[in-house]
């Protein structure tokens, strides 16, 4: 199980990469997470998560064309790898099992 360890932020980044499919590069991922999860994402945190997961093999990447708007620098597009998919699946399975294991009464709580 240790093999598929994913942090909470990593999981969100990985999922977002999946959501954006072919258009997942730094700024786009940042915008998407900020829009969906309503939270600020710093470039540093995002980039280090991306490179870390690429190194672990959860992500694959390819370089795009240089772009004038970006000061002549290329974009780097990320896609989920096979292992990335497995890691996500694994997290999802654990969550699902846990949800199902909760007895109904435990969730029968009122908002106070």
């Amino acid at each position, binding site marked *: 199980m240790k093999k598929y360890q994913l942090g909470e932020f990593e999981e969100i980044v990985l999922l977002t990469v999946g959501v954006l499919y072919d258009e997942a590069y730094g700024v786009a991922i940042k915008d998407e997470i900020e829009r969906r999860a309503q939270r600020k994402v710093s470039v540093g945190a995002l*980039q280090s998560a991306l490179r870390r997961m690429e190194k672990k093999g959860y992500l694959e990447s390819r370089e795009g064309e240089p772009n004038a708007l970006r*000061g002549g*620098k290329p974009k780097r597009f990320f896609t989920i790898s096979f292992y990335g998919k497995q890691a996500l699946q694994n997290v999802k399975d654990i969550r699902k099992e846990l949800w199902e294991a909760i007895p109904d009464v435990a969730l029968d709580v009122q908002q106070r």
Partner: protein
Amino acid sequence: MIKHLADRLFKWFCHPDFYGDISGDLEELYQRNLEESRFPQLRYLLQVIGLFRPSLIRPFSQKLKINTIMLNNYFKISVRNLIRQRLFTTINVVGLAFGLAAFLLINEYVRFEKSYDGFFKQSDQLYRLSTLSVVNGQIETKDAMMTHPAAMNMSKEMPEILNYTNSWKLGEVVFRKDQSVVYEEVVSADSNFLHLFTYEVLQGDRETMLKQPNSLVFTKTKAREYFGDTDPVGQTVEVLGSYNRSFEVTGVIEDVPENTHYKFDVLMSEGSLVHRRDYMEWNWNNNYTFLLLDKNTNMSALREKIDAFCKKTYGEETTEFYDVHPIQDIHLKSDFTYEPEINGSEKAVSFLTVISIFILIIAWVNYINLATARAADRAKEVGLRKVIGAFKAQLVWQFLFESMLVNLLAALFAIGIAELFLPYFNALVGKQIAFHVWESQPFLINLTIFFFIGSFLAGFYPSLVLSGFKPVVVLKGKFRSSKKGATLRKGLVIFQFAASITLIAGTLVVFQQINYMQGKDLGISTDYVVGITIPRVEQDRREEHRSKIGAFKDELRQHNSVLGVGSTSDLPGGGSSDISSTTTSVGIVGHSDQKRGTTYLQSIDDNFIPTLNMTIVAGKNFDRNRASDSVAVMVNEAFLRKLNIPNAEDVVDELVQFGDSDDEPQTFYLLGVLKDFNRTSLKTEVEPTVYWPALNPYTIVVKLNEGDYQTGLQFIDDTWGKFFADSPLEYTFLDQRFQDLYDQDRRFGDVSRAFSIMAILIAMLGLFGLSAFMSVQRTKEVGVRKVLGAGLINIILIFYKEFLKLLAVAAIIGTPLTYYAMNSWLGNYAHRIAFPWYLIALATVVVVLFALVTVGYQTYKVAILKPTKTLQYE
């Protein structure tokens, strides 16, 4: 601008694989922020800083990895270079070694001075209780001594006081040892004493050995002196003088070290002293009180409690207050009177620290100057190394390595030098600081630390300069020493000169002040005057003893080399604590109000004033045959100044009143006014003093004939034997006593002189090397000048001009530095010289002379060369 810098920073630290696209992202976000955010550039920078993460930065270690094979090569090249340039290596190593040794020795001394009273188990909780007399919110006097019952009563009310002890410094007490009589340094101790001052108890019981009256505790060395190898405990020792009875030795403790302010050889149990007038009395503050406070004591709260305690004890209107001070601060920071010994001076310690830092920096500067000046020699080597593929970082390391090698040599020599000079240094500071330098752990630790600091500080700049050469330029042979390097060298030389001038001028000022104090007219004649102290006796023999003293004096007068014999309670030339004093209010009836503050009290007989050639300004001397003199006093001018009485004649035959009118004041006839004389060091003002008539006080002054004072001394010794066979004769010449008061100052002067000389020698060593190098470099220029007709003098002057400019700047910097430092030092003295400006000029002249000789010698060597030789190969 910020963005540009941030981008460079990012490019520098980012992993090259990631740089391209991440900087693209940053750019995109920046473009967007241009419209949305107020500080887009700043945000850019913050984002860059946020990207400084382990997973994103490039690996830094590869380039800096030191190649061990290259290390071998560096070592070989360095050693070759050091051997080839013998002169410069010697100058560097000698300068650094002496600088380091001086620095470390002074450091040892400073550490020693700061270590006072720090070796007890709870030193940081030990405090001394002392007395302040506060009049109208102003502290009038600070007295280190205390009344006896205060601590006991305070500890009942204040839970912070965990323990306390009272101790009288009994001073020199006469002991019978075998067949002879000797003086021993004794303090009293209650049974708490050894719980605060946690000396190791070698024999006897810490709890009980000081409980019984007539008990003594010896230090280890004293015990051995008295009893040899026999067991000291249970032995009896006869104590003479005012005790005149047998005491039992109940214990032995370890020797009292040098670094405590409260020194003694023998402890006497407090129970032996219950007959003293000040025992359990509130009106006498004659003993030292030490407190052990709780770790978490709130000092300001405690002080408030103590103030309240004083008001409760002495009444709301009291001028008597107590204060507490950590005992570890006493040696360097106390400014109290009645200290048990002459304390050290915090100022002297910090001055020495500054001197030592100066010396060390001067030595480092030598290295920097010589290394950068000779950079040209190494330029080709650097160029070639770079061509072959050396990184700049590698070259930096190479030259740092070389600097370490020189510093290592210097550090090794420094150990030897320090060890060699340690005995002289101990004698210089008057303290046994250590026996061997390698036994002192802090010494070795400091040596290591400053070896590394020195290697890097002195080596860093030269190695940056050397490694920065461009191979294309140096290999083409177009290399010239850079202007920037020359400016730095000039700056450093100015620093050396300025430091030398300051040190020399400072030392001269110290000696000027000491000479002034020794030469100043004290108001008494101390030449060939001998002071003799007569031991005290117990109460019931006192009358008999006094008449014996009288007979002794009469006998002395018979001899024709004795010019006069007088007596007093306090020998002139004593410490501040030798004299008794009172804080009762004083005044002259009808001429002044009653005034509070300390008044000093001294008893003299009618022969004291003529024997010491003192001047009576108004009125007349005591006369033992005039009955009314028993209710008369004399005062000094300082006393009248305190009462704001301008004319001494006005108050003669008036009444001096002690005490306020509401509590039974006492009055005495004012017989005469004495001209001020300095009883103690000129650090303090003349004390406002009242002189009482007494027939035979315990100290005697004998004025001897200058021609045959030796016979006089012999006569005193013989006569002493007839009268006081019980005790050893102790005499001192009064002028010697005054000299001794300035011992500390003279020591300070000696130490700063020694190290100032060292500083200037090290600086000159560096200058010697620098000018040697520069004159060799300018050999051809000198040749051309000679061909064009310049004489020897012209050439030497050209070289001088440059150094004289630097010296002028140094003098300008050094002058205010010296003034600021030395004027504040002179501020310690009540009688001080005006700031002697001419000494700065003198110091400058000394430095100029040194510099001219050093530079002149080197220039001369080049200037006498024949142009045919120097220009041969052009």
